[in-house]
């Protein structure tokens, strides 16, 4: 197995969870680097002399207790904060993420006082600076690729152990609490392996106001209704999706209309979340795309594109005999009548015929 084949697996939509430790090998480093995640050098670990767990990290201060309220990202779709019973225990290697990679998000990071240092000779710290410290140390990060493939990076295999799941955490100066590892890992693995936070477009409908069927094409300035139904997968089945920030865009090179869709109120019988809006098409004909481009942290990306043609008025669809234009109609008619009268008088009005025939020669 090499890094390339794993990258190919993700490119085909696969999900992976990578858990490292201080003895992390080169293949996994190389693989992580493909996703902009850089583990610290071999035989290093995260230490914290303030936030260590007093039972598990007593000797080396290498088991740190991370408070989820302040050091975990607030993405409820991945790990909901209010379901964690206590701090999260971590013993392992640090990694850093490229902040410019918008697909990659640290989920858990180290306290301010933590640093990454060699596991063997801890006495050397006076001369050198650690390579990363404090909040720059990511402990757990996740990435969702554009094809919705999900990858989780953990710096610690022991986070997943029964010992850490069952441990109770006692940090210096804090109350003893149950470790939050079990719930944290449960939610994280569910998310990583597409068991939650997955959105699906169930149906897209659009029609003119007052009609029911999808028309072959629209006409400029038509009033129309657009409806999209979304479902969210969690706990083993599909549920209706609820949100207030789903937007519709009407695009022909540029967005002509961007509008937030209203959610139809959910009731006990709803199986999908329905989002709808009624709008007037622009005074512009061409091939347009109705696009819902919904990308939120922790949720799989939704990109629904429906292509529609918007036609101009046909020559016989314009309004006729507009009252505002009556002076113009009258004028054109009076020009015609005036010409008739003029011609009549000119020819038979008994005018000076000598003038009319002067040039007859």
């Amino acid at each position, binding site marked *: 197995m090499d890094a390339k084949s794993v990258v190919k697996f993700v490119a085909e939509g696969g999900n992976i969870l990578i858990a490292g430790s201080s003895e992390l090998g080169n293949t996994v480093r190389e693989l992580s680097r493909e996703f902009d995640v850089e583990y610290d050098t071999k035989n290093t670990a995260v230490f914290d002399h303030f936030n260590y767990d007093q039972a598990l990290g007593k000797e080396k201060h290498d088991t740190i207790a991370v408070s989820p309220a302040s050091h975990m990202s607030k993405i409820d779709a991945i790990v909901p904060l209010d379901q964690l019973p206590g701090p999260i225990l971590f013993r392992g290697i640090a990694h850093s993420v490229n902040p410019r990679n918008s697909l990659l998000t640290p989920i858990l990071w180290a306290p301010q006082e933590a640093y990454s240092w060699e596991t063997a000779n801890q006495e050397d710290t006076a001369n050198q600076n650690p390579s990363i410290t404090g909040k720059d140390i990511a402990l757990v990060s996740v990435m969702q690729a554009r094809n919705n493939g999900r990858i989780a990076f953990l710096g610690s295999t022991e986070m997943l152990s029964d010992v850490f799941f069952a441990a109770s955490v006692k940090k210096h100066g804090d109350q003893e609490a149950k470790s939050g590892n079990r719930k944290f890992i449960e939610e994280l693995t569910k998310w990583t392996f597409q068991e939650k936070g997955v959105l699906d477009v169930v149906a897209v409908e659009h029609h003119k106001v007052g009609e029911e069927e999808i028309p072959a094409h629209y006409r400029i300035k038509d009033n129309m209704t657009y409806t999209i139904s979304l479902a969210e997968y969690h706990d083993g089945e599909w549920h209706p999706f609820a949100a207030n920030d789903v937007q519709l865009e009407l695009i022909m090179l540029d967005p002509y209309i961007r509008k937030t869709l209203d959610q139809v109120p959910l009731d006990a019988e709803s199986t999908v979340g329905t989002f709808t809006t009624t709008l007037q098409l622009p005074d512009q004909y061409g091939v347009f795309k109705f696009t819902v481009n919904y990308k939120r942290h922790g949720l799989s990306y939704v990109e629904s594109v429906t292509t529609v043609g918007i036609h101009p008025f046909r020559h016989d669809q*314009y309004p*006729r005999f*507009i009252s*505002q*234009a009556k*002076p*113009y*109609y009258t*004028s*054109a008619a*009076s*020009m*015609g009548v*005036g*010409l008739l009268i*003029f*011609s009549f*008088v*000119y*020819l038979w*009005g008994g*005018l*000076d015929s000598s*003038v*009319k*025939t*002067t*040039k*007859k020669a």
Partner: protein
Amino acid sequence: MEEIKSASSSLLASYFKDTPKSLKLIDSYMVYVLLTGLIQFVYVVIAGTFPNNAFLAGFISTISAFVLAANLRMQTNPKNASQFPTTSPERAFADFLACNLVVHFAVANFLG
């Protein structure tokens, strides 16, 4: 001021005395056309350009009627006879009618 007054009065007098009746008829027709055009122009300033095609059709019909009448006047004026050696007044009037026919056809199409 005096000079302007006397000049304009003598201009008017000679116009009424020396201009043939047919040319006077053409002149009055042109005044009528001009006024119709002016009214439409005032109307479009007040009421706005919608519907633009109808305005253009109505306004262009007056302009073209005016221009064609001016042409007829030039070609039938005995004083200009030397410049139009091949155009008889009858021929000029026939041209005038034919052109008006084309114009009114276009205007009716464009009026909407």
